[in-house]
Each structure stands twice: as C-alpha cells, then as structure tokens.
C-alpha cells in the first residue's frame, strides 16, 4: 500500500513538472492585456440629440448614437466596461413623465456594467429610484451612502470586482453630501459618510483583500471646489488616497478636454476624468497590462 502510494505520488510529480514546464512557458511569453473603460456622467435624461437650432450643443449627444459608438468599441475590444458617474435622472420631460424608466431601459440595452448615484437620482425620492430598479440591468455602486434604513437597502453594492481577460477590476462609488442639496423628504434616512475615509477603506479592501489589478472610483462629488467652500472634490479625493488608478467624476458638469493626471498621497499618478454632461461625450480610458518584467519595471506611461 505504501509503495503504491509512492508510485502514484511520483507519477503526480512527473505530470506536475511537465505541466509546470508548459505553464511557465505560456506565462512567460510576451503577454499584453488590454482593458477599455468607457464612461459617461450627468446624462440628465437626455435621450435624444440636441436640436439643430440649439445655442450650445446643436446636434450633439443622443443615446442611439452612443449605442453605435459603444458597440464599435466593444467589437474592437471585448474587454470593455461601460460606467456612469450619476445624475442619470432629471433634465427633460422623459423624466417628468416616466420617472427614469426609459433612461434605465436604454442604459440596460447599452449594457452598462455599473453606475453610482448622483444627487438628482433622488429627485423622486428613494422610493422613486427604487421603483425604477426593475428596468436597470446594471449594478448601483455606492460606498458612502448608508441606505440601511431606506427602501434601497440591499439594492446597492459598496464595491464590485469585475474580471476581464483575467484582470481584476475593482470599482467603488462615492456620492455628494445630500443635506442642503436634496430635500430631506427625498433622501429620507440615507446616511452620508465621509467620502475620503470611505475611499481609503475601499481602495485598501480592493487592493489588499480582493487583489485587484485596477481600481476605479465612480464619483459624484464634483471635480474641484475653492478651498473656502470646504467641499470635497475629485482632485482632493485623489490627493488623500492611494492605489486608485482612475476617478470617473460627475456633478460639476466639467468638460475636461482630456483626463487630468494628478498625484495621490504617495506621489503616484492618478487619472481624474469627467466628460461634461447630457451624453454629449463619452470618455475612453485604455489600460494596457504586460507580464514582461523588463517592461513592468520601467513603470507606467500615461498618454492623454
């Protein structure tokens, strides 16, 4: 019995080595992986393109056109995530008449992967948002709103890890302080937690516990505020956290011509991007990974 055991073990060891050789070869070969992140923010119920006589945004935007773009990019790279940084609701009569039903239906058809919650998404109350959830086939990620005592309890996630081509992408979401901005009868007993502390917690969990290769923060805090306003914007959030690769922002309707590269608390680069509002633009960030140690040791290059 013991001898038989030994033989089997040695067989195992042989197979082990063979496979080991194979796998070492396959892993050490030059292997690049490519993740594409597409994002919108503050679409504000803008379903149709702006009319041709519009003073600022003539013929821009439109969900049906966005669909063509997203489909084209997904064909080019199937490892694509589509995200939104909040304020999906409010801005056209589509919201006033249908309460966000069409917005969520179209975003589901576009195969959005995740969104965070903006202040205007509370415009019909937590109940109004809850009522539209059956139309949404994507995740609501919110890390600093505690919905425990509201109808939204269990319907949002503090973070989510997506795996695309073996790359682990951790996403969390932060929202703006609701008091003074949203009527209390709309947000009810939603508790707002400090977004910087929460972002520090979330990035630690996603890095150390979930071992993510890429960490993305969906933010509806706003891009940047004057210091006297004592409000937390994305640039401040970036400077007081670490391990976040990309902050996708919203709220301030900031049209950034290209993503901002800023430094985190450890002096490393963080990208902050926001693409204005009303579905006029889509942001695209491509992340390239390599397992060639020589390339990796040179650090990452950022081309914006």
């Amino acid at each position, binding site marked *: 019995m013991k001898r038989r055991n030994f033989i089997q073990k040695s067989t195992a060891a042989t197979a082990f080595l063979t496979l080991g050789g194979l796998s070492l070869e396959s892993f050490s070969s030059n292997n690049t992986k490519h993740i594409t992140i597409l994002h919108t923010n503050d679409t504000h119920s803008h379903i149709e393109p702006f009319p041709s006589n519009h003073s600022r945004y003539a013929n821009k935007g439109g969900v049906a056109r966005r669909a063509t773009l997203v489909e084209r990019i997904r064909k080019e790279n199937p490892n694509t995530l589509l995200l939104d940084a909040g304020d999906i609701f409010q801005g056209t009569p589509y919201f006033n008449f249908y309460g966000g039903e069409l917005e969520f239906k179209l975003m589901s*058809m576009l195969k959005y992967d995740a969104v965070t919650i903006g202040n205007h998404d509370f415009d019909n109350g937590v109940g109004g948002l809850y009522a539209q959830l059956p139309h949404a086939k994507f995740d609501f990620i919110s890390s600093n709103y505690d919905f425990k005592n509201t109808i939204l309890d269990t319907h949002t996630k503090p973070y989510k890890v997506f795996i695309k081509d073996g790359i682990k992408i951790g996403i969390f979401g932060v929202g703006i302080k609701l008091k003074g901005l949203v009527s209390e009868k709309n947000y009810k007993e939603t508790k707002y937690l400090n977004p910087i502390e929460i972002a520090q917690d979330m990035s630690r969990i996603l890095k150390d516990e979930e071992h993510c290769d890429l960490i993305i923060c969906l933010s509806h805090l706003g891009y940047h505020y004057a210091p006297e306003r004592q409000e937390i914007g994305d640039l401040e959030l970036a400077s007081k956290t670490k391990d976040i690769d990309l902050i996708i922002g919203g709220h301030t309707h900031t049209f950034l011509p290209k993503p901002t590269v800023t430094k985190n608390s450890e002096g490393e680069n963080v990208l902050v991007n926001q693409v204005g509002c009303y579905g006029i633009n889509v942001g695209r960030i491509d992340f390239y*990974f390599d397992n060639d140690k020589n390339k990796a040791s040179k650090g990452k290059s950022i081309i914006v």
Partner: protein
Amino acid sequence: MKKFIILIFTLFIIFSCKNDPHHLVRIEGKLIPISEELNPKEVFETTIEPYKVKVEAEMNAVLSFTPNELNRLDGKLESSLGNLMADLCYEKADPVFNSRTSKNIDFTMLNFGGIRAGISKGDITMEHAFNLMPFENELVVVELTTDKLYELINYLITENRAHPISKHLNLEITKNGYNLKINNQPIEASKTYYVLTSDYLQNGGDNMIFFKNPVNLYKTDYKVRNAIIDYFKENDTIKVNLDGRFRSEI
C-alpha cells in the same frame, strides 16, 4: 488520490500565475464626442419612439392663452412674467398653507434668475410651463423676524433688479431711503412675516441668506411648476400688468 493530484496541479497553476503577474504599463485616455457622424442604432430609436410620441403630445397640450408676450425684461424692478409667477404661486399656495396653519402668507419672493424662459403671445402649452420652470423646486413658507425682513428689503434694493415679488409687497426706493408697505400696512416690529419662496432659495440660493434659519419653516409639498400648470389650467386667459409694486423714484 486523483483528487489529490488535481489539487496539486491546481495549486501549482495558481502559484505559477502569481509568479508572473501582469503589470499596468500604459494608460491612454481621450474624449469621444457624440456627433452626427455616428449613425443612430435603430433598435434604440424604436424603443424611444412610443415614449417620444406621448411626451410630445403632453407637451403640446394647450393650457391657457396670453394676449401679450410675457417676459422678465419688460420693466426695471418688476416684470410681467415675474409678477405673474409671484402672484400665481401665492394664489395656489396660500390656501394650502392656511388649511394647515390657519395663517396667511404675507407675500411671495422668488429670484430673477429662476425665470428660465419667456412665453410668446398666443397659446400657452405644457412645454412653456416646463421651460419656465425646468427644476423640481418646491414652494416653502418661511416665518421671518422683522430683522430678517429688513435684510430681505436691503437685498432687493442692493440687487436693484426685478426679482419676482407678489403684489402684497409695495416698495419704493426714494432719495432718502425707501417706503415699504406689506398688505397696505407699515412694518410692525413685534410681528413675524410669512414669506413664500422656493426650497432652492430657502437653502441660500442666489445668496438669499435671510431665508436660512427662519423662525419656522413650512413645507407645502407643492412644486413651483405644478403651481404654474394648475394656475394656467384654471385661467383660460392670462392677465398681468406692471403695477409698480417695486419701483424707484430716483
């Protein structure tokens, strides 16, 4: 034993992958405009169509009629549209407030910037109401001390523009100061005043800080836009005049 072998293999595969991880080496970022060059995807257009038809029908519904153009620029310290907005909000909200508190509102004050669009001579449609008030702001009543009331008056005088106020307030800027009456009465220092405004302004919007921290705050649960729509539906012809409720002799 077979399970054991599989376990060893699995562990080894995980281990060898860990030894050779992928590192982020390059990031590229750009902005993609959604323009006419992108053809709309048909299935999206057909999904939108039934919603669009219904929204357009609702927006084209005729609510009332105006024999004159209404805008916010036809007076110096008052305007036809501002007077209409302030008066109709009072008319719609005062009964609600009275039924709950047995008190009456003293006057309305809104902001010039809150009048988002004018209304041309002719039919008034639902779309006009939405353009005039695209936001979800609600009417609130703030109970003000006379100190805060005087801050409000000073604000009006300093701003020197046609912030909408209802006909119940009569303010004349004079060479030596101003004349003020509310409901034809002079100000009584011991009294508090009930002012109708929007929750946006009550929260300090347009620097109307005198509305913050009032003696009491009463919510009406009545949206400004709904007050406008209800008023238009109840009045088949809109009559509004510039009546000098806020004027300057200098």
